[in-house]
């Protein structure tokens, strides 16, 4: 009996192994709970692939953008608002990965590991989510894009609130033209599920000169007094960086006003690879950013294999450089905000089924992108652009600062038209808003992007101006 009871002790091994298995099982449940419970096969939350258990999504004014009623997901009454907010609201099927209905579905359903989906069953709906955007403003910006593809983003550069995010092409979520999208040969629906503001990357073109300027202010002591010559092109090692005009001899401020390629190619060469890269590093190029739970496409700047000529091109925003519109908005916002960027936010608050606020957006400081003095100098330069070159008449009563960009995307004659950019901000005390506009293959920055920016900013002034 004694030996037998001693042998019996060995059975503690399977018992302990079983306990270990239970721990692993619990851990597996705990770590995968969000993922598993949000699967479309979960009929507590989905009805034929549509997320029905989500709460309301409202804009900053409280206007309903999406809600569940009668077991169906319903959206804003206005077709133009539905279309303009398609990408931020997202769809209930998950085609639009960055839409809050997909990226915030845990929050929207109110699933927690402890309670499971109990509260959803109890209250018949999930948590309510209030977005930072203003739906009317989005609709206005979307309309301003006209027939072009592209994106518009507006952010309060003091608080980080993204009041406008819109991306084109979009569609009316109430009746998704799935056939048209699937059989699209004209390119009308190219990248329709992509929110270009968060997930797009574009050649920055002349808007990058703002960054080259920042680097010059920091690193070239006599940049203000330098006079350089433009003959319509600047020759480097046998190649040349072409300029759109023959600007003659001109100084720093004037060169930025007229966006002289020759001038900035020479500035880039003076700076050299290292210093220009250091500036872009400080601005967050080649870094991952997130807006809440949404991941931004990464802006890239890489001169590791660049020749001198490439460096010249990079200085004017061509070469291999790519910029994400939201990231560009953060950079411009940092200039307006005195050098420090603020963390943009898209979700203003989340309220649970019992009315308790479970998440409230807070203003958070982001990267220190520029020194205060550099930011101030850049503000003056960007203000000069509008005042002395584009003209304040283009932005009536807005006191805009900004820079246009015309980003060449094709090397062939008669190829795709360039992307038109505008980045800028208002200096009015009551309008601390920065804007980014990208019009894909729209043409010239000042002729195409400025009107879009103006229309959007006028609406901003109407909504928030005092």
């Amino acid at each position, binding site marked *: *009996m*004694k*030996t*037998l*009871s001693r*042998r*019996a*002790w*060995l*059975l*503690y091994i*399977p*018992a302990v192994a*079983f*306990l270990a*298995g*239970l721990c*692993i*099982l*619990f851990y*597996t*449940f705990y770590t*995968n*709970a969000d993922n*598993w*419970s949000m*699967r479309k*096969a*979960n*009929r*507590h939350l989905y009805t034929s692939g549509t997320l029905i258990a989500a709460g309301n999504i409202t804009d900053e004014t409280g206007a309903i953008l999406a809600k569940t009623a009668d077991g169906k997901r319903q959206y804003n009454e206005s077709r133009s608002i539905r279309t303009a907010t398609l990408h931020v609201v997202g769809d209930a099927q998950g085609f639009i990965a960055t839409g809050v209905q997909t990226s915030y579905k845990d929050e929207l359903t109110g*699933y*927690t*590991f*402890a*309670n*499971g*989906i*109990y509260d959803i*069953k109890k209250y018949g709906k999930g948590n309510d989510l209030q977005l930072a955007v203003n739906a009317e403003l989005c609709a206005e910006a979307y309309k301003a894009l006209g027939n072009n593809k592209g994106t518009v983003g507006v952010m309060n550069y003091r608080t980080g609130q993204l009041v406008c995010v819109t991306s084109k092409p979009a569609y009316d979520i109430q009746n998704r033209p799935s056939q048209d999208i699937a059989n699209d040969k004209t390119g009308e629906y190219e990248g329709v599920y992509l929110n270009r503001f968060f997930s797009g990357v574009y050649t920055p073109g002349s808007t990058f000169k703002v960054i080259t300027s920042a680097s010059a202010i920091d690193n070239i002591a006599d940049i203000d007094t330098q006079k350089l010559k433009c003959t319509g092109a600047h020759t480097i090692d046998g190649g040349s960086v072409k300029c759109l005009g023959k600007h003659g001899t001109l100084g720093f401020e004037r060169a930025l006003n007229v966006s002289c390629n020759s001038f900035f190619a020479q500035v880039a060469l003076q700076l050299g690879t290292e210093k220009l890269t250091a500036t872009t590093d400080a601005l967050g190029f080649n870094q991952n950013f997130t807006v809440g739970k949404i991941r931004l496409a990464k802006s890239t700047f890489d001169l590791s294999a660049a020749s001198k000529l490439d460096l010249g091109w990079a200085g004017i925003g061509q070469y291999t450089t790519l910029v994400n519109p939201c990231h560009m908005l953060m950079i411009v916002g940092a200039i307006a905000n005195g050098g420090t960027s603020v963390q943009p936010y898209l979700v203003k608050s989340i309220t649970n089924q019992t009315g308790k606020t479970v998440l409230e957006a807070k203003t958070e400081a982001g990267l220190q992108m520029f020194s205060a003095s550099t930011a101030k100098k850049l503000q003056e330069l960007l203000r000069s652009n509008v005042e002395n070159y584009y003209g304040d008449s283009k932005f009536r009563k807005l006191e805009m600062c900004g820079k246009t960009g015309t980003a060449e995307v094709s090397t062939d004659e008669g190829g795709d038209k360039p992307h038109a950019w505008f980045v800028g901000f208002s200096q009015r005390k009551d309008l601390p808003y920065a804007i980014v506009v990208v019009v894909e293959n729209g043409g010239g920055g000042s002729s195409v992007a400025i009107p879009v920016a103006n229309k959007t900013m006028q609406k901003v002034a109407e909504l928030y101006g005092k």
Partner: protein
Amino acid sequence: MKEQKKKKRRKSYRKPVKWPFLLLMMTVFQIICALQIHMNGTQEKTTTLVVVFAVYITVEWVYFLVCGGFLHRKSFEIELIAFFLTGIGLTLTTSVYPDKAYTQLAAVMLGILVFSVMLWILGDINRVTKLRMPVAILAVLALAVTLVIGTDINGAKNWIILGDGVLSIQTSELVKVAFVFVGAATLEYLQSTRSLTKYILFAGVCIGCLFLMRDFGTALIFFFTFIVMAFLRSGDIKTLFLICATAVLGGAGVLTFKPHVAKRFETYRHVWENATGSGYQQVQLLIYSVSGGLFGLGIGNGKLRYVYAATEDLAFGMVCEEFGIIIAMTVLLTFVSLVVYSIRYARAARSSFYSIAALAASSLLLFQAALHVFGVTDLLPWTGVTLPFISRGGSSMMCCWGLAAFIKAIDVHTYKRYDKIGQS
């Protein structure tokens, strides 16, 4: 000093739990279950609901009052666990398959009957020895008959269906009890190598039959139980390793040469890629298990119940979703406690038969629970074995209660007349 300490410890773990309070709590729990089913309307026939729960709770109380009051038994750990688990299973069946509530109740009654009869048989070691051979022969016959006239359900030919489905028996479940019985009884009087050889032959035939039925889960359970019993008797780890190695090699060989066997395991660790095909049930189980959260959605509120074999193969998920992960984990911990109970009582058992039988039975239940839970959650290959006491099914209910009798019998206090001998 040391001896005293030991005595003290032995005394402390023999202290029986206070059953009236626990029984009352359990009854409250079961009444709450019944009320939930009623409020959810998942069991439309109120009479069925009332009868099932009234009968079950009455049987529970009668059992405890007769054994505790009349027979003066003091420890009721095994019964409390068995009744608790069975109650959960009964709740699930009554709610998910309203029509099968009475059948399951009958199965539970049969199980309790088997438990009582087994306890009586185990009370006399001579009776056990006499029954050893007939039981062994019956067990082998039952398996052989199943092999010949058995019906294939879900890929395993382990069912005997009589009278157009009026009575369906899963013989492998019943043979589990016989397997432990014969094993422990043979190894009790291990006078000659002949009896050991006989037992190995018996085990081999049983496991072989199960393999031919393609009931790999049960075959594995038998194999594990065999290893446990052989080790307890011989203490020879080296031989056991040899047996295990041979088995693993043999298993690997089967998998290589019989691709259709390997096919059964190909979704292992790939259930999500086969979410609409072969991994469907498991994926559903995982989704709904975490949907229930720690505290569960309440009986009748789940969605896993609509998936095929919800209360049998997916019983663990049902408990997770509707009772909550905490109760599901508690259920699993009870299987561990059965093994610990047997280990702790092994020294004080009347003879090595009781120790071996209890240890084998509790390990069998633990191993089966492990195969069920870790298999269905894709941590181990899924073999489709049931969750003891909880999964619906008459044969498995009788088997579980039968095995519980072995664990119960290890405690000398079960048989009152030995108490005096033990005390003197």
